[in-house]
């Protein structure tokens, strides 16, 4: 190893090399492009949409794709293409805020339980297990029915429910680390529990949390779209993929284009996130089957 090959800042160096590793894998390159495409589209779509998503046209109901309406029109005569490219804005915004919150609180609680261990940890984990055994949609509908369906309810609800499985992951990752001597060294020095969590444990658990966060994001997107599909998410006329699928479902046999646009948009985003998470896990060495040679 020559001196020149050692980057000035080792942390930055590691981040860059992980990023390089992710983009050099086919799954990472494809996945990351898909995610970036959707993120950029969500930002610029209002400015490039050919039609207003609210404009109805009674004369143009359920027309097929043509040169003007690229993906045809829906049952109210609205342009499906314009609605599709803007249909992810709400979903990405809500889940994009809720995911970091979920990972942060779930991660901290998991690291804490992993550090203290013992009986408290065991008992708390049984609560987590019990909670996870209930179907998510049931739990979520209860909250939404009680508090309403606005963003201000959806974000905390999703962040709360999706943080709970993160506890499990963070705790398991912490258990691997907590038995190591550097944690004992920190204890012997007299570091506070908070410092041990923040300085010794968190940096070692972060890899697992990042991969977990990416996976949670894709599941959260599905959950958000499912809620919209059921009518508990975004309210019309705001375009949303789940809502659009629900609306166009009835006409699927003779006007399939109404479903096709949002379905492709939603699935490409979710596949993109999953591929990225996969490549990230391999780059970080979390996937144990794929260890680097030598």
């Amino acid at each position, binding site marked *: *190893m020559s*001196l020149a090959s*050692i*980057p*000035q*800042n*080792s*942390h930055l160096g*590691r981040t860059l090399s992980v990023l390089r590793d992710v983009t050099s894998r086919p799954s990472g390159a494809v996945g990351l492009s898909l995610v970036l495409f959707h993120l950029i589209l969500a930002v610029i779509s209002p400015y490039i949409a050919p039609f207003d998503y609210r404009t109805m046209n009674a004369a143009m109901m359920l027309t097929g794709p043509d040169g003007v309406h690229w993906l045809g029109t829906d049952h109210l005569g609205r342009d499906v293409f314009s609605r599709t490219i803007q249909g992810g804005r709400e979903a990405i915004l809500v889940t994009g805020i809720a995911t970091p919150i979920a990972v942060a609180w779930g991660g901290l609680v998991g690291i804490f339980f992993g550090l203290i261990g013992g009986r408290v940890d065991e008992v708390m984990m049984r609560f987590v297990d019990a909670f996870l055994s209930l179907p998510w949609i049931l739990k979520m509908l209860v909250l939404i029915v009680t508090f309403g369906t606005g963003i201000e309810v959806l974000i905390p609800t999703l962040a709360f429910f999706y943080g709970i499985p993160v506890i499990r992951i963070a705790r398991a990752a912490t258990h691997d680390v907590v038995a*190591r*001597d*550097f944690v*004992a*060294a*920190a*204890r*012997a*020095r*007299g*570091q506070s529990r908070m410092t041990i969590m923040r*300085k*010794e444990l968190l*940096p*070692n658990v*972060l890899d697992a949390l990042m991969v977990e966060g990416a996976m949670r994001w894709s599941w959260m997107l599905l959950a958000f779209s499912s809620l919209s599909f059921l009518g508990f998410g975004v309210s019309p006329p705001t375009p949303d993929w789940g809502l659009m699928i629900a609306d166009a479902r009835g006409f699927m046999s003779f006007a399939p284009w109404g479903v096709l646009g949002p379905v492709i948009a939603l699935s490409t985003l979710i596949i993109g996130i999953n591929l990225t998470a996969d490549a990230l896990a391999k780059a970080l060495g979390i996937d144990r089957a794929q*260890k680097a*040679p*030598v």
Partner: protein
Amino acid sequence: MTDTPVIQLSDLSIGFTGRAGHTLPVLRNIDLTVRPGESIGLVGESGSGKSTVALAAMGYLKRGLRVLGGTARFEGHDMFALKRRELETLRGGQLALIPQNSGQSLTPTLRIGAQLTEALRLHSRLDPAQFPDRVLELLGQVRLPDPQTITRRYPHELSGGQQQRVAIAMALAGEPRALLLDEPTTGLDVTTQAHILELLRDLARETGMAMVYVSHDLGAIARVCDRVVVMYAGEVVMEGSARQVLTAPTHPYARGLLASIPKLSDPHLPMALGGRPPAPGGAGDGCAFVDRCALASDLCRATRPMLAPGPGGAPVRCHHADRADTLPMSSQGDHAARAEAGTAPVLSLQDLEIRYSRPGLLDRLRGREDTRPATVDDITISIAKGETLGLVGESGSGKSTILKTIAGLLPPAGGEIRFDGDAPLPRSVEQRGPDHLRRIQLIFQNPDDSLNPRHTIAEILEQPLKLYFGLSGTALQDRCVEILERVRLGGHYLDRLPSQLSGGEKQRVAVARAFAANPDLVLCDEVTSALDVSVQAAVLELLNDLKAAQGTTYVFVSHDLAVVRALSDRVAVLYQGRLCEIGPSAEVYALPSHPYTEVLLGAVLEPDPDTAPKLTADDVIELSPPAKGCPFQRRCPRKIGARCDTDTPPWQTRDDGHAIRCHIPLDDLHRQQQADS
């Protein structure tokens, strides 16, 4: 016995493709011939390619490696040209491998009998009806007592030494022509290691197998091997009879390696071999050892020496082999810094008792005391300021446990710890004040585990400085550099991560972190046992220099009696968590000794083909101490009768402070031991 080689590697080179696309060699032009009945030792530092050579002889390459040239033949078969099927029949059958830590290579859910039967089914031509008898025969052959019982055991019910014996029995199942041993005794206790090596010697003689013995331990090599091959940076640098390589090596590296081994007979610190081997592909055109060699000349930098007969006839890869005998070979390092006599104790342990077990819930509800013997009991030691106390004993003797308790990581069940004449120290680290925390520091065995892999060296050193001294900004930065320089690493290490450092450098950082606190007492837990011998010598030297400069007191725990001797003023010997003997190190290493110390000292292997270990007690590992009497009663070769089983032996103290805990009067003990030696 024919003279056709069993294993023959010819001009074998193995390498991998690096990140930049270059081919980087791991082995370069290896020639190795092993004849029937011969045992060959492969020695070298970690990374020298010795295990790769052994695995290549089996036709096996680690992931990512490929053959760059040459051949590996076993009994005429070209191992890298054979089909998978053919390899499978050879491997494990005629060519067997015994790995390091074979406890992990036994299947945990199968009984020993079933595992041996499977080995026979795959590799033996015997009639299956004979398998049960053959299993017993094999277990007898590896000297396991009561083979019948062993067949019904699961691997976890056996000790490390017994597991290693079972692994050897499995290897013998196919009646191999050659046995490859990859550090087979590393990680075992000294007494167990000595017994396993004697077994291997006997087996080689009985069966006429060829053996390739890979080890970094020249003592083990000296005991088992006829011929020794010294490897450095993927090359053979010297080859010759064990006697020649170990007593009159003609390669500077081999001499340096020998000088860096601490020896029981020698109270000096071993000499460090500076520098580190080149990375694969980094050797350049010249000699790979040139950067660390005292004899290096321009010729060495320009051309790579060939393996050619040197003085004494043994092949050596050195331009200046004729001058190698000018280099020192035995340790001529310093005497360890000694404590001044008559200073006040800085640490005293009084009747320390430590338990890992807790009484069960029912017993606690009924208010019952735990009747099981404590893991560590009855430890009373005081350590003077500036003194180094060595704690020795086999694994499970409680030596690391005592360090953890002093550090407050494991609260004792009874007794007290006094530090610097103060009131007793609070039992756990959470109750101790910042001053006590700062003044007692702990260094761990393995720096890979004790340094956070996500922290840069700067962040590692900043933690104690911020915590104890509240430093920040440039003062903090300057202090980090200063501390790094004190452990002979420069400020340019600050931004590196531990993974970018070698093993020895990492341990220096761990030492630096402990000394950053300006401690009065440093607890060293097997600090050199994860390191190569050459690196070990450097770390010992560093610890000694720091002590000389700062008057630090050390408690130095190690299973290696020679290392302890080199560094310690006083030595305490522990067995099953009880003290057996304590005294000035010169006295403890001389007669009379506690019978356990005698067993330990007898089992130590010296890198000298003429010394044989004295094996007096068996190598059974005891899992818990006896409830009463002498802790060593079950293994003691000098046991005098029922008194040893029932009465706790008394301390017999001599004028020089040397104390032995034994029922045998010291004069009698001395006489018996002199008669035996």
